[in-house]
């Protein structure tokens, strides 16, 4: 058969398709096909006691693969109500009864960071979590996607989950980053251009010279935010940056799966990022994006640095550079939640925590904290917050009449300093 015919039938496979095929025990998969995949790691966070209820309602008794399951307490860490404490208690005893050793209690941090810190994430794996931002792990070439409690219960009972093979969009980034501009600004810009529903059911791959140069932390921020354009999963082809990072975390071997040459993407998009300045997602949707320059002078009441998007050691370091030897505006609060215990320890060792506390920051327990609006930095009616998080829906951080501006960690720290939105590039020289 002539090869061009093979091409037109789409025999060339993307790494994501190969990952799904392998997990389903098949040689080939094609777009739109439903495949039943073996799950390498399933994660349940503390919002989801429902996963345990559903597990027993299905008549299951024993978890299929206790070593492929982890429970992480992050959204309510530590518990601030009786309901939350009861949820934790139920999950602790479930882990105990089922022989689940990977229980990360209230001292550990946000699930996505904790799994990476503990070497549980590797290229080519299928990682399913009860959290929408599981796309984050595309930064490592893993297939990560979020599900609800009942899907997770299906995995607990059977070790498998059905997945539809998604269409794949490639986003190429080229050009030179301007000073004070980070992955968060770029992804906000992209979401603003494409819209919150652009990639529903689809996978988004990032490629190009800008991505190649970015650290793991920046790549995680990029992949994390694809959830806000509806993506099912994200992907960055593992390279030296990935391998160097993972080789310090993981002591087992992993293989790198590559996309076939001439694979046909559903779409290829190109962004020249040279002229993009700092960006903000403005109230009340993530795709409502404006250049920060247009919003300079907007008064804030709170700045929040944290979350699985913008709460890593690099993010805290940027804030420390901006605020070192200075003090935040007396009119505002600056809440910092390191994404994990490991992040907190790294920031402590670098001296960044000391600089920020001296500058007026309130550090809270590593975890989701104010990101979800359940504790540790809730907003009152009419208040405005700038946050390094990923969502600004009405009421996300507290009162439905509060407002959230989403920006990079640098933009958050700069606003904390000034008490209003200002351009961070004017401060970071």
């Amino acid at each position: 058969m002539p090869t061009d015919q093979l091409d037109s039938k789409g025999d060339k496979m993307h790494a994501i398709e190969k990952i799904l095929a392998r997990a389903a025990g098949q040689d080939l998969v094609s777009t739109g096909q439903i495949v039943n995949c073996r799950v390498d790691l399933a994660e349940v966070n503390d919002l989801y006691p429902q996963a345990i209820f559903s597990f027993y309602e299905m008549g299951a008794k024993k978890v299929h693969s206790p070593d492929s399951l982890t429970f992480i307490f992050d959204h309510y860490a530590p518990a601030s109500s009786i309901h939350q404490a009861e949820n934790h208690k139920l999950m602790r005893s479930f882990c105990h009864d089922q022989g689940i050793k990977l229980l990360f209690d209230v001292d550990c941090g946000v699930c996505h960071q904790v799994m990476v810190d503990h070497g549980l994430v590797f290229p080519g794996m299928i990682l399913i979590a009860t959290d929408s931002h599981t796309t984050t792990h595309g930064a490592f070439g893993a297939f990560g996607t979020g599900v609800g409690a009942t899907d997770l219960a299906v995995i607990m009972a059977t070790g498998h989950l059905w997945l539809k093979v998604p269409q794949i969009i490639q986003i190429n980034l080229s050009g030179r980053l301007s000073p004070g501009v980070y992955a968060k600004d770029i992804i906000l810009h992209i979401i603003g251009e494409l819209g919150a529903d652009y990639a529903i059911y689809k996978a988004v791959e990032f490629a190009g010279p800008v991505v190649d140069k970015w650290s793991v932390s920046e790549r995680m921020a990029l992949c994390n935010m694809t959830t806000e354009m509806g993506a099912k999963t994200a992907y960055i082809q593992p390279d030296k940056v990935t391998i160097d990072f993972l080789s310090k975390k993981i002591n087992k071997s992993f293989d790198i799966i590559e996309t076939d040459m001439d694979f046909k993407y559903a779409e290829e998009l190109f962004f020249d990022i040279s002229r993009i300045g700092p960006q903000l997602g403005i109230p009340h949707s993530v795709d409502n994006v404006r250049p920060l320059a247009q919003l300079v002078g907007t008064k804030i009441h709170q700045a929040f640095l944290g979350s699985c998007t913008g709460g890593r050691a690099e993010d805290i370091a940027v804030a420390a550079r901006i605020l070192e030897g200075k003090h935040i505006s007396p009119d505002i609060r600056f809440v910092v939640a390191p994404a994990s215990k490991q992040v907190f320890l790294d920031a402590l060792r670098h001296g960044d925590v000391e600089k920020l506390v001296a500058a007026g920051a309130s550090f809270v327990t590593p975890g989701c904290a104010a990101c979800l609006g359940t504790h540790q930095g809730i907003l009152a009616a009419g208040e405005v917050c700038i946050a390094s998080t990923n969502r600004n829906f009405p009421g996300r951080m507290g009162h439905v009449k509060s407002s959230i501006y989403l920006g990079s960690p640098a933009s958050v720290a700069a606003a904390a300093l000034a008490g209003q939105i200002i351009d961070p590039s004017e401060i970071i020289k």
Partner: protein
Amino acid sequence: MKTIIQGRAFVFGDNLDTDQIYPGKYLELSDTRDIKKHALEGADPDFIKKFKPGDIIAGGSNFGCGSSREHATIALKGLGSGAVLAESFARIFYRNAINLGVLLLVCPGIRKSVSQGDIVKINIEISRVYNQITGEELEIQPLSDYVLDILRMGGIKPLVKRQLQEMESR
């Protein structure tokens, strides 16, 4: 599984996120009877006072975007929603709903063709939606066989239960 559904429409816009369908501050609740009291509270605080079992929810694109919280679909199931019609659904919300046996139907054009309070009739077998007030007729995207199997069983829990029993008895 019912194939003809008729009810009053409650209409919402594009990108109706899960914080509006089920505000984060109630996530610690785990009893369906408590959860359903807060359905759509973030979008309309009086929603549950007006909604009757069998009524229909109509939305725009990306309905249910945002978090993976199953509470959003548990709340709609608890209220007894007849069906949710939208231009498109966010994927986790879609999976959660089907898993619990809540009927979601993709219906291009619905946002413009239905107003608050209109009576809407859905015929699943022929994939049609009728606005009984304006006489307008729309097509719905047919459900995939896999999704239909789950819905016919009343959700994925009974389906997996049967699979587990079959495995045990083998």
